């Protein structure tokens, strides 16, 4: 006589999947695992790409919004057509007079070669101290040039040209300074 448990154990221990079938199942699991890993890599890459695209779009959107605010501020100041407080014919001369500026006032090297400086005053752009200059071109047309230091968040501002209330506004940067030129309509 033998015990039930011993015979049952012997019976089951003698059972098993055929070797070929067992290897097939193990191989299927390995292939499925490799497939899942590939899918995971693709999903992570797609997520990163999406994240990067969203970040780029967000940055571009923020820069565009900042550009809109600067343009609106420049146009508003230009429309006031305030007189110069300090008359000066050269940028160094005016820079010396506007001694509260925390940057060296310099003429833009790429534009306004045909404009003559009349003078300037203090102003601000996006709460940052700036110089508001009045210049006149060869045809006698006056324009307002704003100059401020290129610090955050203004340094993220892309060069732009736009029209606002009949005023043409061009924004660009040179040598660590942000320039904004407003021409057109006002001067009542």
């Amino acid at each position, binding site marked *: 006589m033998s015990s*039930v*448990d011993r015979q049952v154990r012997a019976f089951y221990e*003698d059972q098993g999947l055929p070797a070929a079938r*067992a290897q097939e199942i193990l191989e299927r699991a390995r292939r499925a695992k490799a497939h899942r890993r590939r899918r995971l890599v693709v999903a992570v890459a797609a997520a990163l790409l999406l994240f990067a695209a969203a970040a780029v779009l967000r940055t571009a959107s923020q820069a565009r919004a900042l550009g809109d605010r600067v343009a609106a501020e420049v146009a508003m100041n230009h429309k006031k057509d305030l007189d110069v407080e300090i008359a000066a014919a050269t940028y160094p001369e005016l820079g010396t007079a506007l001694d509260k500026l925390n940057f060296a006032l310099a003429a833009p090297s790429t534009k306004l070669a045909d404009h003559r400086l009349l003078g300037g005053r203090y102003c601000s752009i996006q709460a940052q101290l700036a110089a508001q200059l009045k210049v006149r071109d060869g045809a006698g047309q006056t324009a307002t040039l704003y100059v401020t230091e290129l610090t955050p968040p203004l340094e993220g501002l892309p060069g732009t040209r736009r029209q606002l209330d009949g005023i043409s506004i061009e924004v660009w940067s040179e040598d660590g300074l942000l320039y904004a030129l407003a021409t057109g309509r006002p001067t009542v």
Partner: protein
Amino acid sequence: MEDLDLLQAGYRYALSLTGNSAEAEDLAQQGWLRLHERYGAGKGRGALFTTVRRLFVDRYRRSRRVELVAIEDLQHEPEDVAMPQTDWVDLERLLAGLREKEREALYLHAVEGYTAAEIGDLTEQSRGTVLSLIYRARLKLASGASGLGAVAGGASKEPPR
């Protein structure tokens, strides 16, 4: 434990659940793939048994009639029962005649060495119920084997090796 050994253990457990080698093969494969799909490699016997059991409940029991049998809980570990030596073919038939729960409980206890409490955790039954299932299974197998012996004139058959 090697993957192959673990897979074979899963198959034997599936066999104890289904009582049928073809269904057990299918169940073991599904359980193995499901386990690796959910957890990857490195999971042990307990996780595989749980996965196989859930698949079995989902796939097989729903399609079968629910067997309502009152089971009296036992409080003490039942003694193993003496049984005439029975060959594999007869033993397989006797095992197939057990209720699924009895076969499963006996397998986990006699083959895997699980305690009644551990079986209760896996199968969501009380320890007393598990002890009762094991006891009933032993009695049924011993009684069935004795009957076979009587029919065969008491000749004891050695299991094939």
